[in-house]
């Protein structure tokens, strides 16, 4: 089992005729994901690498029955692509594009219909190991298991998942929620989904400086609305104030958004916070298989 995505998900790729879009469409298909085709306005009717191309998402959905879309279109057009997918009735939209104007996202998020879930933008996508991969993640590092992973980062997540897999700890679903200030799905949303997923026994949460998404997750725990064990890691503890640390959203503004505040919030909520990614497998093993009382 998994959240958001499983082996029945049918995926279309918006921007499939672009270099990135086509490359990752093929990689996702190799992983075993049901990639039914793609969308590029004006190129409907073409076929690229055996993927049929449609002019609009609504035509692609009608003809393929897709319920998931992944977006690789350039930043100026990406918010439009998100809303096109949602408007066409696509239930899960993962937007990989980095560099979308924040105001475009403010408007897009405000206009999303209630039934649509957006992952990202500026995210690596998500994977339910052994079922489907929708994103740019390297499929070989993942293994099937009962730990959910949710992260604001990309490569750091692969690193952590790789450590988990090597330690024999498999994953239910791994979600990269993205590094931008305005994103569709936040930690709290993923925790709520993991709470309901019987196949998830514990969660690794990878946060970073900026915003209050981690604090919000901590208060969900404090309120008792999440019952499974959580291990967290917060990146950017050494970040100076006022600098965007690679991600547009990773910035300490004044005294808000610091790693210290986030670590403190998690510790108050009873979450184990790892000092280094290397310690995560050990901490998760302990919460999954606690040492017997002496």
């Amino acid at each position, binding site marked *: 089992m998994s959240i958001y995505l499983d082996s029945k998900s049918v995926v279309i790729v918006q921007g499939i005729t672009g270099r990135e879009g086509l490359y990752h469409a093929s990689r996702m298909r190799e992983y075993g994901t049901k990639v039914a085709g793609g969308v590029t306005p004006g190129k409907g009717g073409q076929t690229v690498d055996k993927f049929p191309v449609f002019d609009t998402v609504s035509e692609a959905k009608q003809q393929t029955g897709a319920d998931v879309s992944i977006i690789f279109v350039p930043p100026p057009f990406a918010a439009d692509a998100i809303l096109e997918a949602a408007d066409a009735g696509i239930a899960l939209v993962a937007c990989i594009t980095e560099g979308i*104007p*924040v105001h475009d996202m403010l408007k897009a998020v*405000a206009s999303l219909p209630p039934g649509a879930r957006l992952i990202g933008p500026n995210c690596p996508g998500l994977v339910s190991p052994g079922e489907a991969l929708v994103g740019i993640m390297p499929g070989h590092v993942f293994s099937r298991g009962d730990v959910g992973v949710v992260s604001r980062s990309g490569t750091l997540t692969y690193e952590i998942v790789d450590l988990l897999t090597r330690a024999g700890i498999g994953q239910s679903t791994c979600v990269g929620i993205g590094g931008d200030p305005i994103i569709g799905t936040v930690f709290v949303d993923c925790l709520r989904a993991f709470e309901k997923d019987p196949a998830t026994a514990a969660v690794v949460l990878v946060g970073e400086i900026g915003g209050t998404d981690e604090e919000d997750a901590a208060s969900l725990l404090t309120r008792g609305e999440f019952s499974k064990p959580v291990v967290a890691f917060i990146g950017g503890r050494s970040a*100076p104030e006022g600098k965007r*640390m*690679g991600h547009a959203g990773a910035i300490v503004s004044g005294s808000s958004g610091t790693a210290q505040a986030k670590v403190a919030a998690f510790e108050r909520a009873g979450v184990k916070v790892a000092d280094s*990614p*290397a310690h995560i497998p050990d901490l998760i093993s302990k919460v999954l298989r606690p040492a017997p009382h002496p």
Partner: protein
Amino acid sequence: MRLLEYQGKELFAKAGIPVPPGRVAHSVDEAVAIMRANPAPSVVKAQVLIGGRGKAGGIKFCSDADDVVAPARAILGMDIKGEIARSVLIEQRMDIKKELYLSITVDRASKKPVIIASAMGGMDIEEVASREPSAIAKRPIDTAAGYWPFVGRRIGREAGIPIEALAQFAAILGKLYALFFEVGAMLLEINPLAITGDGKLVASDAKVDLDDNALFKHPEFTQWKTDAESDALKARAIKAGLGENNYVALDGDVGIIGNGAGLVMGTLDAVKSAGGEAANFLDIGGGAKAEIMREAVNIVTSNPNVKALFINIFGGITRGDEVARGLITALDGGKWSKDKLVIRLTGTNEREARDILESNGIVAVDTMNEGAKRAVALAKT
């Protein structure tokens, strides 16, 4: 992209928000000319992005052209917490009776713009928030409904803005709101928003943070880019095809290259844990080719503070052999020596990568933490 005060005030003035009469000078001669054209009691303000310029001596007063020489000379070129004042704003002094606070910012939690106002202006709003939270009114804006003056009047009442200033306050907020959307701002802040002796509201300071990702919609702001942003290495990274945030300058002596912002941040933290400080970092992004890696090494090591270079790569889409090849090319042609280098490289094509490195006399370390420790030690030798 943060704007200097005078640039922010230029935006404000165009948007119809009252600002004091003033002009910017980049030299003492310019300052003298400005005061000669308009000899009135004035204030000379260092144009820097960093806060706390007043305490650092970056704000002085003058009353005529002779009088401006000393303050202009003192401030131009002044180092304020590491930032050099390259220009001064010379503004007429105002008779200020009261100081208010007003800002609009992107609120990540509500995913909406949020208006913050207070009758206690002139000090840091976070300080007000912790000392007297009831003195602050905060209201997320429903972007669908847009701005309506009644919202401004209501926020003004909640913030304790004096009744007689309420209509002006609501009008200025309306203009600030329109400007916020027009320029795609992350933050517009007026602190203080002054009430003058004759009851007028005037923006006494201007803090503007624009969204780098939206600058393509506003080519008119590129003129300010050089003034507000003087980092040549960042410019080089952007020229190499990397994003606005991929290169960041810091204060230490370890240069860092990694792939992916989260991994780079983790690397920085590991360096810090090992007792070191990063000099800068560069994120080569996903799937980088040898050419990008070569340029990355050249950019990061061009910073004269860099004593050791730590490269940390997790090969997912990025292929280790491309990284290794790029690194070797950079070392071959460049001025950087492999003795001041630590590399950790794992994942896709790790074997091929290690072969390339070892045939060039470089042995990769196995973990991030180990690499961080070595790099910090190297920087200290």
